[in-house]
């Protein structure tokens, strides 16, 4: 089976998927949807933990395992007919073998217990819930490194403000004035801007165009460079038009993104030791490069965008950047050798390194550590998705008190509204939160009757699976740390709790 996912997360990402072992707790509609979306792109193995039975016949875990196994014969599927509570009682180490644990429809107490075990073992934990027309996801991971964040709109790394020696050399081989017509109109815009920038600098005290007025003047300078025919009419030189269009971005200052600076200044980066993960060793190597060969800049990325040019000029220019990038990578590698590790593609994405840290469940639920600010500021708008989080907390309180969920049977709906409201309020009081929770939402939650509609389960199924893939592959940035989906209005929000 071919996995086109390759093209999006690369061979390296695919390897990590194939070596991953995912644990799913509770093979409900939501749970099986999540697992289906992991099995299809090719995770190596999964284990379902579920103590429930299916309509008195097969255990739910077993039935689900068989169905999912059909989807991909290469995946190894296992099941454990045991409740997670029992496992936590008798064998909490059971969970240590997993790359990530995903739990759905877990009662609060179990989530907290399991959360604590996984936090100590540094295993990522994804908690999901489908409750009527509300979807909920909570990512719990201490420190997650993103090696390739693949930003959608990345600025190019052209170094036109600080041209490196090999580029300057290459630039000298171009003489725009004396070129023939064909060469002139097929010179890459990067060269054009670089040439005219040299001219500008020599005429402006070596200061590049600073404000709008100067950039306009710079653009005009380039425009004046367009060849004219014998009647004085400017020729059609698209490469010059491209240059003019790209002046703004080309004049961007080369600098280290603040997110990366923060990483450079962090404790883990400065105190590399035998316990340090390869991520931090690589990061330190990049930092050391920055302070030596890099002259305070990151390694050159080495790619250039496509542009109007003849093949040879384009490829030669591309090679100048590529060669420089390889040199920089080699220099970083030497630093790493020095720091006892080997480097790979991390170099190309030095400015895309990110670390995601989520608060633990204990912190979220703790009376002293609850994120009151986030809750109260969101609830300035009483229709914010935050209200669904708060009512879900009330629902769990209801379950603790009544050993059932509100409104499961028709006859319960009306009476449970006031009971649920009491529960929600008691949670708010414990945290000393003064927020307005509209009665309509409490009523709606009773109407939900703890149902798990398949459409909402499928939405969470897709969302959660993709976040799990991000965690496993260390590519693309996962959410931090709570995601609420309101299927009634088809809106969503990410909250930091």
């Amino acid at each position, binding site marked *: 089976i071919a996995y086109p996912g390759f093209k999006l997360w690369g061979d390296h990402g695919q390897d990590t998927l194939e070596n991953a072992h995912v644990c799913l707790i509770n093979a409900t509609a939501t749970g099986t949807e999540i697992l289906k979306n992991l099995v*299809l792109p090719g995770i190596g193995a999964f284990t379902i933990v579920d103590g429930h039975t299916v309509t008195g016949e097969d255990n739910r875990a077993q039935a689900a395992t068989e169905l999912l196994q059909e989807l991909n014969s290469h995946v190894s599927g296992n099941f454990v007919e045991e409740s997670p509570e029992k496992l936590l009682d008798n064998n909490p180490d059971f969970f240590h073998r997993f790359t990530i644990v995903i739990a759905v429809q877990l009662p609060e107490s179990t989530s907290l217990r399991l959360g604590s075990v996984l936090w100590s073992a540094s295993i990522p934990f994804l908690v999901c819930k489908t409750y009527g027309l509300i979807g909920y996801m909570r990512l719990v991971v201490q420190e997650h490194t993103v090696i390739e964040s693949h930003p959608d709109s990345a600025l190019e790394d052209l170094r036109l403000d600080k041209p490196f020696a090999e580029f300057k050399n290459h630039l000298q081989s171009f003489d725009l004035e004396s070129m023939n017509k064909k060469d002139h109109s097929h010179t890459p815009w990067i060269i054009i801007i670089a040439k005219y920038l040299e001219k500008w600098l020599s005429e402006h005290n070596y200061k590049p165009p600073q404000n709008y007025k100067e950039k306009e003047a710079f653009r005009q300078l380039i425009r004046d460079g367009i060849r004219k025919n014998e009647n004085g009419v400017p020729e059609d030189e698209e490469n010059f038009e491209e240059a003019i269009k790209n002046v703004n971005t080309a004049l961007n200052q080369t600098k280290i993104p603040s997110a990366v600076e923060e990483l450079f200044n962090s404790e883990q980066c400065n105190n590399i030791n035998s316990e340090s993960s390869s991520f931090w060793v690589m990061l330190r190597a990049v930092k050391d490069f920055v302070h030596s060969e890099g002259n305070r800049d990151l390694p050159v990325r080495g790619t250039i965008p496509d542009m109007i040019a003849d093949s040879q000029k384009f490829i030669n220019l591309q090679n100048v950047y590529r060669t420089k990038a390889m040199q920089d990578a080699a220099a970083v590698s030497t630093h790493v050798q020095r720091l006892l590790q080997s480097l790979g593609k991390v170099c190309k994405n030095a400015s895309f390194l990110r670390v995601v840290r989520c608060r633990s469940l204990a912190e979220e639920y703790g009376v002293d550590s609850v994120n009151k600010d986030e809750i109260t500021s969101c609830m300035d708008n009483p229709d914010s998705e935050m209200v669904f989080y708060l009512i879900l907390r009330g629902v769990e309180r209801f379950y603790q008190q009544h050993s059932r969920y509100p409104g499961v049977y028709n006859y319960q709906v009306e009476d449970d509204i006031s009971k649920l409201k009491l529960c929600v309020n008691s949670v708010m009081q414990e945290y000393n939160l003064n927020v307005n929770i509209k009665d309509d939402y409490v009523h709606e939650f009773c109407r939900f009757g703890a149902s798990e*509609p398949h*459409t909402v389960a499928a939405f969470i199924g897709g969302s959660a699976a993709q976040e799990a893939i991000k965690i496993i592959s260390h590519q693309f940035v996962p959410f931090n740390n709570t*995601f609420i989906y309101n299927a009634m209005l088809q809106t969503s929000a990410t909250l930091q709790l």
Partner: protein
Amino acid sequence: MADAELPMAVDGGYDWDGRWNHVRKFLERPGPFAHPDFEPCTESLQFLLEMCKILVIGAGGLGCELLKNLALSGFRLIHVVDMDTIDISNLNRQFLFRPKDVGRPKAEVAADFINNRIPGCKVVPHYKKIQDFDESFYRQFHIIVCGLDSIIARRWMNGMLISLLSYEDGVLDPSSIIPLIDGGTEGFKGNSRVILPGMTACIDCTLELYPPQINFPMCTIASMPRLPEHCIEYARILLWPKEKPFGETSLDGDNPEHIQWVFKKSIERAAEFHITGVTYRLTQGVVKRIIPAVASTNAVIAAACSLEVFKIASSAYIPLNNYLVFNDVDGLYTYTFEAERKENCSACSQVPQNLQFPPSAKLQEVLEYLMENASLQMKSPAITTTLEGKNKTLYLQSVKSIEERTKPNLCKTLTELGLSDGQELAVADVTTPQTVLFKLNFTT
């Protein structure tokens, strides 16, 4: 208040106790966010199970998800249309298919799977193109949901539903409206929208949201390649028609032998220009214009679409109004907004479209305008008009003999062709099942 859930006594005993509980809660209970027309009752479930007819267009990545979601939400009378057969590369997303199904029609395999696994469900497959059906087919459905990968097909479907609308004294008859739910995905991005033809923004109202696909300029491909993609396009566009490696067959992106041929030729081309990066995978991607599909995005978008089908069929909630955008590249991001109708939409506004050209303009210019204008984006428009009481074809591409006969017209000016100011032109195109009328306005 009624106690517990009544045991289901539905035909054939398909429904075990509690089977549809999760659905009934929304059909039988009042709530503050229900549609104003909503009336909780036990008959709603009957309607869903026995009478509500849904049409799913496409049985691919989105289609498989849609069928599953609808079937598990209580819909049983479902038709599915898909003109493709199953390819091995589909298996990692289109989970209703197994290796043994490769080569069979998608619609049929999908229907079989659902009907076998979800008792009571009666999916009817159609291994056909949407254009093979006419109004009488489409009119029978309560709601139509699309999981297509083609903008042309979407626009055609859009046009078909608009043609079903009936107006009495200029007032739209609501019973002639068939809601259209449309879903689309590309990698980690996707969108889901609700269209009430004649009432809300249609596909063509928001055509600018679908930018035309990137086609590399021919001169780059022919003489100045820089990227591996240029080399692949060279093999695809120039070499294949010239060398006809497999006889008269056209290039099939799903045929590995075809791709292998294009791949080999692309490598040769790339070697000439010292271009690196041509791989088999890239070749396939360029030929099929693939933006790799991701199972999870299809799951999310199909889920949103299926939920809207449920909302509209049951009135349990007010439907999405009317456009959802989803992107999970960085965290998860959704944006919901109301796409607005375009006053002069060429598909749904009933406002005659204007064409402004000087009388000295050549017909070629009109043709290019119809294809390149962002709001029209026609593919191969056929232009006819009435001259001296007779129907005259000015230009038509799809029939070879007519194309040859009318080709010289492209170089003639509008006046030379006998057209006058205010002349009505009727334009037909694959993007619409109905002819679009344009009014020619001469500029000075």
